[in-house]
């Protein structure tokens, strides 16, 4: 008979047991004996294999080298790395998985991502990136030029994720998989261009299931940030109109018709003109209104084009499909939604409220 005063201890011990904290086997991860890798780069190998690469030793001031292996299975790569390096490579601090664009376009990255997602050692906050070009070549070239390149790459992604500045579409593995398995949403991933000397963000890739089907960049990417990602842009540069808007915040309202034949998209934008190099005198209210109308017209046109491409390729990264969900009614299937989405008439309306950074003569 357990004395009553020890019931609480018994209850907590049971809870711990149920929560899986009481495993009698703890993995030896003596910190000086392991090498926790920060990224995995996955590329297309020969004969249908994967080519995976990582940098060792990670985060330590010793001479670094890039390990590359061609394997059939992702975990096989992790194991084979251990055989060629003196410390055991661990994935517990894996922060980035870089997937080559060719592999992403071919599809079938779902299993790859799933392998990482289900590994209990790996955090759900691993960033997923699409790389256009040869990342291994870039890293190899940077080994001697810049210390801890892998870490600083991670810090860059973390910075843009934390502050939602709209510069980049930063996606972690959990967000990707959530959208992948949702019938009314499609996943996105950031795309980076890599060559021997540079590694830079170029745009956003849209996925149909686990296959990259569309890529947007420049103004289209900025519009996407406003419509569906961060709803904020630090700078929206429109070279065509010689104007730069700053601190742009968007308020997006979507309304689907009852029969899903049309979508009305209203975008309210708040911001300020930070730069203007055009011909008009924006000190005059009349001319300022004219500039605003031009911006609205330009953004409406660009947005309509972007949405039409999305409709054509049957991708819905803006999660328009979720607006079809209503309480107490049956959810429409993915197939039905894509049929509606492909044929939908879309009305785009921008309403821009601008704070000019100079004095404006008001109309009486």
């Amino acid at each position, binding site marked *: 008979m357990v004395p009553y005063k020890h019931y609480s*201890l018994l209850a907590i011990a049971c809870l711990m047991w149920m929560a899986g904290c009481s495993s009698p086997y703890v993995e030896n991860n003596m910190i*000086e004996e392991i090498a926790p890798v920060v990224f995995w780069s996955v590329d297309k190998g020969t004969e249908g294999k994967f080519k995976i690469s990582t940098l060792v030793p990670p985060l330590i001031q010793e001479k670094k080298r890039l390990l590359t292996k061609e394997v059939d299975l992702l975990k096989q790569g992790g194991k084979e790395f251990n055989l060629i390096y003196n410390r055991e490579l661990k994935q517990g601090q894996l922060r980035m998985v870089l997937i080559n664009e060719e592999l992403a376009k071919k599809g079938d990255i779902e299993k790859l991502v799933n392998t990482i997602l289900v590994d209990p050692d790996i955090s759900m906050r691993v960033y997923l990136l699409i790389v256009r070009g040869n990342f291994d070549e870039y890293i190899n070239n940077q080994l001697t030029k810049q210390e801890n390149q892998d870490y600083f790459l991670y810090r860059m992604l973390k910075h843009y994720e934390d502050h939602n500045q709209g510069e980049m579409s930063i996606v972690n593995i959990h967000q990707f998989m959530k959208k992948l398995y949702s019938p009314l949403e499609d996943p996105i991933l950031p795309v980076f261009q890599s060559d021997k000397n540079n590694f830079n963000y170029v745009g956003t890739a849209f996925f149909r299931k686990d296959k990259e089907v569309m890529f947007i960049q420049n103004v289209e990417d900025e519009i996407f940030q406003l419509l569906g990602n961060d709803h904020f842009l630090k700078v929206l540069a429109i070279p065509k109109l010689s104007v730069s808007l700053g601190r742009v915040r968007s308020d997006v309202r979507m309304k689907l018709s009852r029969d899903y034949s049309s979508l009305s998209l209203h975008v309210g934008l708040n911001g300020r003109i930070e730069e203007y190099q055009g011909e008009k005198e924006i000190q005059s209210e009349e001319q300022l209104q004219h500039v605003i109308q031009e911006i609205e017209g330009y953004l409406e046109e660009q947005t309509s084009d972007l949405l039409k491409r999305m409709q054509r390729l049957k991708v819905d990264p803006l999660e328009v499909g979720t607006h079809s969900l209503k309480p107490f009614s049956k959810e429409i299937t993915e197939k039905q939604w894509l049929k509606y989405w492909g044929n939908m008439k879309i009305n785009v309306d921008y309403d821009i409220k601008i704070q000019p950074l100079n004095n404006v003569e008001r109309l009486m």
Partner: protein
Amino acid sequence: MVEKYDPQMKSYQLPTWLDELKQKLNHMDDAEVVELRMGTHASVHLLYIKTLIDHERLNEAIIQPLHRCAGNSLSSCITNAKVSEVTSIEEAQQKIMQGFILLNDSVNDQWLGVQLETTLGRAVESSQTETVIYGAKDSFSEQIDKNITMLRRRLPITTLKSESFTVGSLSKTKVVLLYIDGLTNPKFISYARKKIESVNFDQFLDSSQLAAFMEDHHHTVFPQFLQTDRPDACAYALGEGKLTLLVSNSPFALLAPITFFHLFQSPEDYFLRWTVASFLRLIRYGSFIVSLALIPFYVALTTFHYQMVPLPILFVLLESRSKLPFTPFVEGLSMIVTLEIIKEASLRMPTKTSQTLGVIGGIVIGQAAVEAGFASKILIVLMGISAIAFFLVPNYQMTKSMVLMQVSLLILASFLGLPGIVIGLIGILAHLHGLTSLGQPYFAPVAPFYGKEWIDLFIRGPLIWMRTRPDYLKPLRKWRQEMKK
């Protein structure tokens, strides 16, 4: 044949008593037997231990009055000292060893005891163990009567009762139990009385020894009596409904019943603004957790859970630990033991030597240990934080106990990682839950739950809101405020 006191005849058999007492005082250089001849009395024998009595007062209170004495009895002549009758040879022995002067009244055929013990002791000084910036500066000393005076001055009420006991077959230590009649729960008083009366040991050199005999749980690391040398803390505790035990030759009073949370309270908490005091109290609890778990946490992370270390710190850790010959457990344990050695050494040394020790210790466990490759830089930083956090807990006994808990958690962390630390902390909580102080739950007011008392638990709420005495002390008078007439 030994003649004994005959109550009916009221005969003390003077020669027999005197001889027997002389025999008892044999081989005691400081024992004196003096025979005085005076006035109407043929002769008076004075027996005393000269190292225990006040010689000036002997002359003033006994020798001079006896020379002038014309009365029939000795007790009527001695007017400026307390005179009591001694009725047995055992009592005579006891009194003589307590600084009494024994004298025989041959006219009335009786033995008398006059208390003239020397007032040897230090002056009232400020507390060294519980220093405060604000508040009273006086502290208890080794003289129990002075200590009682300090309390009576703070609580000038007739309901402050004091009961004396003697413990220790050799030390004959005087113990005074103080409580406020009509406020303190009588169950506590009778429980304490029973505990003191059951004490059976030869010597009591400090109140902590008495506490060890009175405790409900002897094998725990948690003190069940609060030791303090501050009279204001004792007065406050008495006013709350607690008991106070004063022990002769010990400057530390014992307070009971206490709870675990009393160990984190400082007398100054009640002198500061409530917001400031609450903040400091929260920091103390935080420090308690930090001091217990920081080093074990480091060992768990570096042995099992590298995933949880933020990348920038992992960078430093990998760099630092890759050059070390020891496992994180050995590294942590050796640093804890080294720190304890330095702490112990600096405590036992004279002040100037301890300062040198502190500096050398700081350099040894700091820079030298890192440079020699015995410890990592991160561990040294954590050791520093942990060591300072230890000192934030106001109770010194608790601080010493915490090292044992820290080492236990360290061992658990080295085998089981973070679940080990969690199991250890749960174990500590469960243990605390099972403890009692003077029969009262030690983990109150958390378990058993007394919601109202939380106002003076993790925070120190405004005094104007603390209108009632703590429920878990079951006081007879609940309200602190008096009813207005």
